[in-house]
């Protein structure tokens, strides 16, 4: 049963639904700033074999209920806006095709472990500030150059690039943080996203900030609160594998690598 916004039903709709297949989309709705009510609204949307969950959500927003709160931008899995729980599992809406879910009914909920702003959009301030905390930039004295100096690049072999490129692919979607069990309880844990970025810069042959960064993450709510549950890597849409980065970082702290 599609819930139709009362005002919307008065609008003159010109869209003709042409697709033969359709799917039921259950969207979790809430606006915690106003009241604590949480409910699911059901919508029936037409689908094609290439329709993504984001397409379906935007279809609902355009034609059935304009008030659905959802964050999106690139629609090609490179901006990290559209993380949410789809049929219970954290995923990017724009990178999940409805056809691959093999289900007539799709439930979308906001990501866990973040405060909800509205409906599917969550507040990511903590992830953003934890990212900043691990000093995610090349640390060395001579990192600023000017045109007159004629300075060229630091040499770096393709093999050296491969040492950090996977961690550099993080789109900050925050899915990892929403899947991590430590995150579920520990509100001061730095989280897999930031830890993977700490490793990204340490593994970069141009960086000299290893000790500073290790100091930041070696505290009571730092790296040691990861117990290699692996859920972060399980849900990462970009192959970053934060769990691997974290275990490799531990090697430095345990004195096994340098």
């Amino acid at each position: 049963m599609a819930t139709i916004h009362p005002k919307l039903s008065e609008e003159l709709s010109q869209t003709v639904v042409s697709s033969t297949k359709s799917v039921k989309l259950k969207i979790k709705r809430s606006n915690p700033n106003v009241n604590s009510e949480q409910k699911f609204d059901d919508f029936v949307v037409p689908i094609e074999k290439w329709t993504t969950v984001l397409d379906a959500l935007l279809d609902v927003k355009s034609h059935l209920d304009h008030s659905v709160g959802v964050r999106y931008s690139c629609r090609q899995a490179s901006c990290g806006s559209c993380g949410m729980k789809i049929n219970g599992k954290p995923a990017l809406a724009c990178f999940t095709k409805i056809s691959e879910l093999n289900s007539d009914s799709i439930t979308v909920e906001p990501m866990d472990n973040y405060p909800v702003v509205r409906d599917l959009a969550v507040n990511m301030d903590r992830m953003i500030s934890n990212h900043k905390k691990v000093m995610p930039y090349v640390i060395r004295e001579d990192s600023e150059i000017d045109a007159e100096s004629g300075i060229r690049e630091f040499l770096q072999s393709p093999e050296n690039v491969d040492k950090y490129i996977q961690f550099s692919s993080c789109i900050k979607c925050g899915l990892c943080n929403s899947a991590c069990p430590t995150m579920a309880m520990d509100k001061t844990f730095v989280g897999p996203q930031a830890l993977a970025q700490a490793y990204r810069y340490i593994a970069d042959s141009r960086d000299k900030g290893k000790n500073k960064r290790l100091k930041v993450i070696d505290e009571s709510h730092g790296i040691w609160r990861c117990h290699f549950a692996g859920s972060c890597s399980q849900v990462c849409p970009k192959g970053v594998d934060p769990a691997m980065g974290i275990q490799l970082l531990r090697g430095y702290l345990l004195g096994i690598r340098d």
Partner: protein
Amino acid sequence: MERETGAREGLKGWLNPGKIGKFGIERLAWLLMRLTGLGLLAYFIGHIYETSHILDGKAVWDKSLEMTQTTEGHLFLALVIGMCVFHTGNGIRLMIAQMGYGIGKTERPDYPYKPQSINMKGKACIYATLGMAALAMWYGMAVMFA
């Protein structure tokens, strides 16, 4: 910040590893590791208390031993054996992984992405550990109920 706490999944996120398809067997291992760790700690405290009865003479010692000579007591001990084997086995796996071994090597990821740290070796270890724990429990029971 209050809001922040409320938004967390909380214990639900701990106790409900979901279908194995959601986060994989690794998440179940994570949960069992906690539970067995706590269980063992509880048992250990009890064990220290129990063994202290040795100071009170044979009668008391034998009496306290009787507590575990029942069917429930045997089942409990079997569970402890299982917890111990799982916790130890999984602990060894974790220590090896957390030192950076057996979790693959960093390289350019190619779509469809497969996280290297979540690999067959690890999964096999977890299943093997679970199997060993079951086996040990079975063996323990066989001995105890003999």
